[in-house]
């Protein structure tokens, strides 16, 4: 699957996601269709369970956050279940895609499909700078930890909020420098 053309993989993923989202808004036997496709493709892609579960767990916060909104409607339980199942199937399909296809190939293909340039630039910058931000945040946490001598929960939360605030300011500074560096090479 890794050697398959990115075009086919992206098209198949989009199709699977679209079909899944088009299924009825209550649990239905049709849901087995994308689930079976994923079950067949998973061993072919050799995606490690840990890789998928970690990322699925991160997405779960957003999925549940949105799914809970359906509780506002009457007879909401089947809709809630449906939203959770369908969203998880779609995220798993996306995970299979990113596990089998390097990110720059996905971007290249989307560029050929004439996706909006602003969206692709945003995706590329996000992919490029997430590790930089993570590294910066880890450095700040280590520096804080080296001068932290108590383990009270309130103090830890206060520290964490300070780090998040500093990270935000540093990111804004970095964004300014990145913009200058882009302009220096002719970007307008």
């Amino acid at each position, binding site marked *: 699957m890794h050697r398959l053309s990115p075009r086919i993989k992206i098209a198949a993923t989009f199709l699977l996601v679209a079909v899944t989202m088009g299924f009825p808004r209550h649990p239905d036997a049709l849901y087995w269709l994308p689930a079976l496709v994923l079950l067949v493709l998973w061993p072919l892609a050799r995606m490690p369970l840990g890789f998928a579960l970690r990322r699925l767990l991160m997405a779960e916060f957003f999925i549940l956050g949105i799914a809970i909104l359906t509780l506002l409607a009457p007879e909401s339980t089947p809709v809630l279940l449906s939203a959770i199942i369908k969203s998880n199937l779609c995220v798993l399909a996306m995970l299979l895609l990113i596990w089998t296809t390097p990110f720059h190939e996905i*971007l290249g293909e989307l560029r050929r499909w004439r996706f909006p340039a602003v969206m692709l630039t945003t995706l590329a910058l996000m992919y*490029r700078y997430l590790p930089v931000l993570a590294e910066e945040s880890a450095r700040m946490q280590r520096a804080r930890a080296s001068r932290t001598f108590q383990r009270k929960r309130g103090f830890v939360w206060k520290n964490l909020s300070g780090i998040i605030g500093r990270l935000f300011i540093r990111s804004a500074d970095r964004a300014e420098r*990145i913009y*200058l*560096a*882009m*302009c*220096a*090479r002719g970007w*307008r």
Partner: protein
Amino acid sequence: MNTAIEVRGLSYHYPPKGRLALDNLSFSVAADECVAVLGPNGAGKSTLLLHLNGLLPERPPAVPQIWVGGEPLTADNLDRIRQQVGLLFQDPDDQLISATVAEDVAFGPQQFGLDGPVLESLVEHSLQLAGLPGFQDREPHRLSHGEKRRVCLAGVLACKPTVLVLDEPTSDLDPRGRRDFKRLLQSLPGAKIIATHDLELVVDLCSRVLILDQGRLVAQGATVPLLSDEGLMLAHGLEKPHSLLHRHPHG
């Protein structure tokens, strides 16, 4: 002597009405010259470099203060000037914005309208010049600091600049990375302007030195006599380089 860059009466205040960062600077750099810009932190070195590429001031002044290859830097020719003056930033992570090395090196030339096989061969050639052949598909965040810096340089070289402007090019490099990068800079033709605290690099690479302090150009001249003047160096937050401690200023 062909002049690569000429600066006349350049002053700059950080907005709005902030402190004076550059105070009436005038100097020129010849087409094949390598010049160092020295000074303590906050002297205005990086601010000066941003001016040379037209990134500062926010709007180019009506009366030009900078000439590149004899052409005045104005709002009308900003793109051409930015192509001619290649600026290497201090932190490679600010400069490497793309998902792969090849895309990043291609970023500048693409802005100037290049694409297709011509662009591909330019990218390959620039990576070769920077000593990174075959790095096209590597991801920038997986490179070492020294490699990142070389990719940045390849991205600048791909724009075919006539002047290279480098901000602290050897900071954060280990001795081997520093040595390799110095050799790479020595091999590149054209004018170079280097803002740095690495005085040994200056002794090895630069024929002339400009010393800035509080935005003013306090001294300029040949490298060895100027850096050997211990009084001058100490007065402006610098130190005589170790390699010159036992060397006569005039050879």
